[in-house]
């Protein structure tokens, strides 16, 4: 039947081309003509016919087959209302830009009334995905092959298994080979022979994939064979145990990544508040300035998004640091020794900075795109993968931490900062310009806040309220960890992050945050100096 339809269309097209003129015909090779006919068949009346046409296109082996099929599932395949030709269409301002599906050449434009979408249902969509995947199995590109095998994991039917069995020997990539073995094993689980199913279970041992778990669970309850049921049951509990363990590891990872963000946000505060004793409520806005600097740097170098972040890191440090020095020189200098007044004045500054950003940029959130080398993830196994951007943030936080530690312990500036914070009068007596050190220390703290802004811009949208959400958290981290102690900030930030992530599944994100707040308030009752209290003279003065 469907051959007939295609056939008559083919005849019709031949006649049409003959009538229009033979030269057009001469440019098309035989394969193209056949392919054109299959593509035209996509605009059939019934879904069955469309599915068959898609199958035919996949079998054709034509170089543009996967493009057309992809367009079909992406809803980019249209047909002309007049004539019924199938075309690829991209929406433009006034309508659509059309492309010829066979040649890939531009085929003019159309208004929205001249073309209509080739409608498909989810069943066809699934089938077409599998078709694309099967075509991708033989692709020379390893990532295409990997995605293809992943897709086929969802529907490992015998035909697929057969094709993969021939390919698995020659597959050079070990991880793709593993996935291929999974597909084979899954398809063999559906075998009629109990012995075959047992072998398949053995072959799948050690896999934690969702698909495997579901299939094994199914076998453990429904298999007619007693031995298969038993083995599947044993495997299932094994899989569940392991997945639970990996789930725990995942929570720890999320906790650490959240903790490192908290830590980054709190480092600057640990310097300004912890070392200098200045309470800076505009700290969150300095983070925001860092994030906006990242955004601006990205705007300035639109062709080098991958490297803009490397420029943004020093830029954010300098810009936020400059703001910090200005704030210290302009306001805070006059308020030393009056913490409550400092708090109020810097809060006013934070309002001004927020409104400034709203006026200069806009009240709307801005998107900062991550560089390509930061996206993606390292997959440890089916139940646990490490997202690269979170991994980078953790690494960045640690880097900043050790850099700060080095500055404080190994440089002259660090020595002077510590001298001034421990005994200002004595430091001045031995020739340290304490007001200059104050400015530099505050600038350093502000610059580190700017670095936190760079990291945050990679995780969330950049907006005027970005910093506000972190000010209370950062203070809690500093107070929890112990004032004036970078190690305290490190441990405090990480442990609060992990605590938060462990509470979240039980209580929800908001209540988890509330519980952490309550926990810290109670903790401070017990240990007012935090986890790592300062010892010696400085402590008794504070």
């Amino acid at each position, binding site marked *: 039947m469907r051959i007939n339809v295609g056939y008559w269309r083919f005849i019709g097209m031949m006649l049409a081309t003959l009538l229009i003129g033979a030269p057009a015909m001469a440019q098309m090779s035989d394969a193209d003509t056949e392919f054109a006919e299959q593509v035209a068949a996509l605009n059939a009346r019934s879904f069955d016919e469309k599915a068959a046409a898609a199958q035919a296109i996949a079998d054709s082996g034509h170089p543009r087959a996967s493009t057309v099929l992809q367009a079909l599932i992406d809803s980019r395949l249209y047909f002309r209302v007049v004539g019924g030709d199938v075309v690829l269409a991209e929406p433009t301002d006034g309508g659509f830009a059309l492309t010829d599906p066979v040649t890939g050449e531009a085929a003019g434009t159309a208004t929205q009334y001249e073309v209509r979408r080739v409608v498909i249902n989810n069943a066809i969509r699934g089938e077409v995905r599998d078709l694309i995947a099967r075509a991708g199995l033989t692709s020379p590109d390893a990532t295409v092959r990997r995605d293809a095998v992943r897709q086929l994991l969802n529907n490992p039917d015998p035909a697929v298994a057969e094709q993969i069995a021939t390919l698995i020997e020659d597959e050079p990539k070990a991880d793709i080979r593993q996935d291929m073995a999974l597909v084979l094993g899954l398809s063999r689980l559906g075998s009629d022979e109990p012995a075959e199913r047992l072998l398949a279970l053995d072959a799948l041992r050690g896999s934690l994939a969702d698909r495997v778990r579901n299939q094994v669970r199914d076998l453990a309850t429904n298999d007619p064979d007693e031995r298969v049921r038993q083995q599947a049951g044993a495997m299932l509990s094994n899989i569940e145990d392991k997945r639970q363990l990996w789930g725990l590891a995942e929570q720890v990872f999320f906790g650490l990544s959240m903790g490192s963000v908290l830590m980054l946000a709190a480092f600057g505060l640990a310097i300004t508040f912890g070392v200098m004793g200045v309470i800076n409520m505009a700290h969150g806005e300095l983070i925001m300035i860092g994030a906006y600097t990242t955004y601006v740097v990205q705007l300035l170098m639109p062709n080098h998004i991958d490297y803009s972040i490397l420029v943004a890191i020093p830029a954010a440090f300098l810009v936020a640091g400059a703001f910090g020095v200005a704030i210290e020189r302009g306001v805070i200098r006059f308020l030393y020794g009056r913490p409550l007044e400092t708090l109020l004045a810097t809060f006013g500054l934070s*309002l001004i900075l927020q409104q*400034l950003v709203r006026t200069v940029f806009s009240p709307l959130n801005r998107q900062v795109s991550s560089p390509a080398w930061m996206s993606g993830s390292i997959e440890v196994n089916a139940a646990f993968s490490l997202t690269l951007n979170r991994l980078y943030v953790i690494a960045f936080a640690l880097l900043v931490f050790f850099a700060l530690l080095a500055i404080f312990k190994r440089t002259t500036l660090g020595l002077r900062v510590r001298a001034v914070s421990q005994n200002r009068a004595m430091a001045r007596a031995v020739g340290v310009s304490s007001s200059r050190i104050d400015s530099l220390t505050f600038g350093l703290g502000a610059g580190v806040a700017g670095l936190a802004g760079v990291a945050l811009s990679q995780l969330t949208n950049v907006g005027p309220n970005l910093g506000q959400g972190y000010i*209370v958290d950062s203070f809690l981290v500093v107070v929890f960890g112990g004032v004036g102690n970078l190690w305290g900030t490190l441990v405090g930030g990480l442990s609060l992050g992990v605590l938060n992530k462990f509470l979240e599944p039980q209580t929800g994100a908001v209540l988890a945050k509330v519980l952490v707040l309550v926990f810290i308030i109670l903790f401070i009752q017990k240990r*007012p100096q935090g986890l790592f209290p300062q010892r010696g003279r400085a402590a008794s003065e504070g």
Partner: protein
Amino acid sequence: MTAKMTPSGSATDLIPLAAHRRILHGDLGGKILLGLMAALIVLVPILNLAVPSDSPLHISTYAVTLMGRYLCFALLALSLDLVWGYCGILSLGHGAFFALGGYAMGMYLMRQIGDRGVYGDPVLPDFMVFLGWEELPWYWLGFDQFWFAAFMVLAVPGTLGFVFGWLAFRSRVTGVYLSIISQAMTYALMLAFFRNEMGFGGNNGLTDFKDILGFSISAPSTRVALFVASALALALSYLICRAIVRSRLGRVVTAVRDAEPRTRSIGYRTDRYKVWVWTVSAMLAGLAGALYVPQVGIINPSEFSPLNSIEAVVWVAVGGRGTLFGAALGGALVNYAQTLLTAWLAELWLFVLGGLFVAVTLFFPRGLVGLLRRREGS
């Protein structure tokens, strides 16, 4: 509405509280404030209800409600000044007490809606029906009675204030630490009240009120009554605060502000005095919130936002910390300025507010009252 309308000499005569004259001894600002309240209580109802609306002397109901709101803010500022100005505790969480008082009143008003809600349930408020709740949570019981709600308006903020203060002051959390913890408290409450599961209307809060004590809440006469209630509450609270700071207890509290370790060494249990003043202040803030809610017609979790609390601090600072009447003045004035500015140039307001914070701390730490006194002195 300036002080000219009520000559300061006759101010005390307007107050039928002869026994409290000692409290107001030497307190010119307080006398002016009380005189002003008395004048407002008499004049505003007449100018709104009796004077025809085309007369230039007429005060519109909108203006009455607006002024009522300023008075509530003034009361909040007053309560904050009691702890900040006289006890040295800078609270960045007084908005929480204000909002809790408001919620207690809102719950009463919610129950008064009865079956006039969208879903027409005689007991459950609309949002509970919407969430599919079967019955009223236990903590909503009793709020259909005004006396109970009025009690809770003081009891809930008071209890929170007592527990918080007891925990904080007993373990000697002071200075900026206390400020940050109080901010964390209101922040945590905001997050909690945003949750639908809490049973306080979540994001939308409580609104669509119909009537209070049987009177329609949108009627001009009710608005005027609420305004008068706010003015009375402010005047009464002023007298209470004044009585506290003039008492022996108040002297100890001021000593705590100036030198806590020394006061402790002399033998005073400073934490008890602080908890006491803190709790009273929390209750006054709750009262302000309870008067505020029926006038604006809504209470939602954003009232808990840390910004609101810290704005209240700037009112006190602008008016003049440690003077009580200055704080009340600041609360009303800054909000009046906000109304003017946001109508004129909305973008400018945050710049002005931020600038106020900086200017008041750097250039005139004693606020408006300090400026006036300096002029008198020179």
